[in-house]
């Protein structure tokens, strides 16, 4: 434990920038939901009607939480947002712990630290303390957001405590898995899997009798029933799980070597397979794992949206005033489809951007240098990575459209929805490529700012996409996002002209990036 204090101060310094965004994100998520719900369902009658429609809808319950929450408006807020908040906080804890333990060991940075007067447990304890502080901060901020938007104090304290306790469970779970896997990617994969399983267990439990929810940390949090029953005892389960996984992590840490995991690393191939023989093969090899993960995630999310469509229709029929708010009951399904596919398009764009940002990492790490010292031209190197980024993001859209279509087709017994929604999803591709092109332009001309440029543009488009309908942003500000020029099919009719224009702009940006990359120094 020696040295934990010093390390914690160092970690706080190291993480302070990123942490602000996580905390802000969680606060805004809860505060926005609270304000939105309270204005939408302002009377007890609204709430009673909501309880009937939402509580009776299996899909909504599976996506959100137990119906017991719907007794009060505060509970309704928790019902809608707790699942998402749980994902954000769990991921924050995963990154905080994983990055400051396993990935430091993997890169060798931790070796330097451990050689100093620092105990074996110190780096892990410091990382967990950091996560603990972050969880306390999240809990406090969620409490403040609840009280600040007019929710009762007692329930707000409980929901803050529940989300902090959930964070601790995932922090110590990550700490235990860090001891098992040798690579950071392995750790993140296992934690993400555990998170997915928790979400599904609680979905199955909330739809069924509720028993399975008790096997999920998200379920423990939701079943404190803040603002309605206000019961604290389910948090004992979170605390018990935290203590057990913490002890397991420390015990496992004593049983492994530095840099090693309890699971031995599998040896690789002695010779390269046929595909790893060109820059294209290399780019594919480097990005295929990420592409598979992103595509699988897109498929599942889109399928979830797709299974939801039918309920949206019912919901709109039962709640004409909400249907009006969403653009009229006749259009409500189409506008839901358009909105969800726009969200999928943002995800696909994020994947494409990571592909370009990865090139910059290849360059600065020195891994691009030996490749470019072979008869591989800069153009071929750029093209190889862009091909995966552009092709991969288009593939993601096709799979998302297919998944949403498939689930929708099942629920309404109409197989024609599958090709229809696949085609509709692909309409977004030019705008996605434009963002990838912008990232490539940054790589060519302002390489140091590749990531900031690309992610700022992405963030702007995301904000425009989410808030376009609900705020009065000026026309020109909205039109800066390429996604606003994409015809909102199936809500609007399809027209090819804007797609062609966006496609041409994307091409110009990509070529511009190539020209810049050709003429600049590499590696600086």
């Amino acid at each position, binding site marked *: 434990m020696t040295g934990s204090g010093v390390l914690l101060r160092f970690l706080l310094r190291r993480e302070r920038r990123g942490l602000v965004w996580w905390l802000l994100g969680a606060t805004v998520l809860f505060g926005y939901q609270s304000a939105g719900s309270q204005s939408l369902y302002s009377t007890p009658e609204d709430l009673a009607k909501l309880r009937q429609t939402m509580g009776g809808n299996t899909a909504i319950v599976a996506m959100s939480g137990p119906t017991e929450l719907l007794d009060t408006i505060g509970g309704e807020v928790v019902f809608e947002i707790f699942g998402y908040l749980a994902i954000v906080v769990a991921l924050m804890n995963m990154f905080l712990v994983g990055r400051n333990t396993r990935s430091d060991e*993997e890169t060798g940075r931790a070796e330097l630290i451990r050689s100093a007067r620092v105990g074996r447990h110190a780096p892990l304890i410091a990382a967990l303390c950091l996560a603990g502080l972050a969880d306390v901060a999240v809990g406090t901020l969620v409490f403040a957001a609840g009280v600040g938007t007019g929710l009762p104090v007692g329930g707000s304290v409980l929901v803050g405590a529940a989300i902090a306790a959930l964070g601790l469970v995932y922090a110590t779970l990550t700490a235990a898995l860090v001891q098992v896997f*040798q*690579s950071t*990617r392995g750790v993140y994969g296992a934690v993400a899997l555990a998170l997915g399983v928790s979400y599904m267990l609680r979905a199955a439990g909330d739809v069924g009798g509720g028993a399975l929810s008790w096997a999920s940390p998200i379920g423990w949090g939701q079943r404190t029933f803040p603002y309605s029953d206000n019961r604290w005892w389910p948090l004992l389960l979170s605390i018990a799980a935290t203590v057990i996984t913490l002890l397991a992590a420390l015990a496992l840490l004593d049983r492994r070597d530095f840099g090693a995991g309890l699971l031995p*690393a599998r*040896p*690789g*191939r*002695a*010779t*390269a*397979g046929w595909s*790893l*023989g*060109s*820059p294209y*093969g*290399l780019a594919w*090899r*480097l990005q295929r*794992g990420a592409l598979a993960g992103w595509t699988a995630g897109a498929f599942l999310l889109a399928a979830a949206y797709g299974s939801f469509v039918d309920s949206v229709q019912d919901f709109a029929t039962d709640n004409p005033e909400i249907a009006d708010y969403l653009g009229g009951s006749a259009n409500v399904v189409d506008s839901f489809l358009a909105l969800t596919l726009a969200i999928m398009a943002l995800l696909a764009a994020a994947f494409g951007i990571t592909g370009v940002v990865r090139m910059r990492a290849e360059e600065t*790490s*020195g*891994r691009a*240098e*030996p*490749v*470019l*010292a*072979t*008869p*591989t*031209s800069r153009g071929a190197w750029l093209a190889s990575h862009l091909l995966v980024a552009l092709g991969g993001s288009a593939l993601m859209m096709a799979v998302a459209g297919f998944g949403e279509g498939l689930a929708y087709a099942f629920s309404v017994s109409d197989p024609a929805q599958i090709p229809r929604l696949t085609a509709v999803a692909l309409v977004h591709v030019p705008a996605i490529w434009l963002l990838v092109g912008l990232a490539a332009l940054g790589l060519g001309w302002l390489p140091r700012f590749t990531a900031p440029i690309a992610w700022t543009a992405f963030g702007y488009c995301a904000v425009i996409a989410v808030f376009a309908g609900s705020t009065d942003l000026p026309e020109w500000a909205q039109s800066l996002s390429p996604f606003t020029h994409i015809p909102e099919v199936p809500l609007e009719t399809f027209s090819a002209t804007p797609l062609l224009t966006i496609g041409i702009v994307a091409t110009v940006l990509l070529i511009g990036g190539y020209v810049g990359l050709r*003429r*600049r*120094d*590499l*590696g*600086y």
Partner: protein
Amino acid sequence: MTPVISVAGLVKSFGRTRALDGLDLEVEPGEVHGFLGPNGSGKSTTIRILLGLLRADAGDVRMLGGDPWNDAVELHGRLAYVPGDVTLWPGISGGEVIDLMGRLHGGLDRRRRAELLERFDLDPRKKARTYSKGNRQKVALVAALASDAELLLLDEPTSGLDPLMEAAFRDCVEEMRRNGRTILLSSHILAEVEALCDRVSIIRLGRTVESGTLSELRHLTRTSIAVETERPISGIEEWPGVNDLVLNGTQARFDVDTAHLDTAVRHLSELGVRSLTSTPPTLEELFLRHYGQAPDPEAGEAA
């Protein structure tokens, strides 16, 4: 013969730092050329310009009869490169990296690959994440040495290797030399350069300060003499080019400028030499002379 590498007046700045400030370098076909200089003197920058990764600000650069910036792809087909700091993709095994680099070069000799893996005692199945610095270096070395490139650019290739592997590396370089390959070997390990190189260029602060064969360079410095004579030695301090004299009757130890070695030996033989040891200057002395710790800086200026 046209030189394989010919660099004249090369200048490269990064922002306000001038990394190369009029560097000259000539590498003849078939020679092993030592490229010497302390850390940060511009060796890697020069090699990156030769690879067309960086663009020269000024100066003439020719390599294998082409322009490194404009003809990069064609030239890269004829050379192999080992970076000074080898970073690999964590999830890809060493064997896969070697094959990938070979294929990017247009094929590699499988028999030679197996032989090199044996010689460098490298396990090709391990993922790059688990390799030590030395093993990563070996991966890059095997990939470069297994190619049939006519020019090898090696940037401090032995910095992570143990002495055994360093010996294996020297054997490989000897073989390459016998096969008529040209090698530019950047290093600050003087023993290695002394053992391997035909000619040497010493650079400092981005500028070439000395270039030539080792014997040419030695000529510019001093030889250490330890001698015992029949008759007592006297007047030795009057002889030209003698320094650091320790005299003890018939025994003497002193350094003499290599240019005046002949005169000193003739004087000594008149006194009847019983025993004589002469030690030629090491590269280390040569090197230090250019980096401020010279025994006598004036000697350098005069030369």
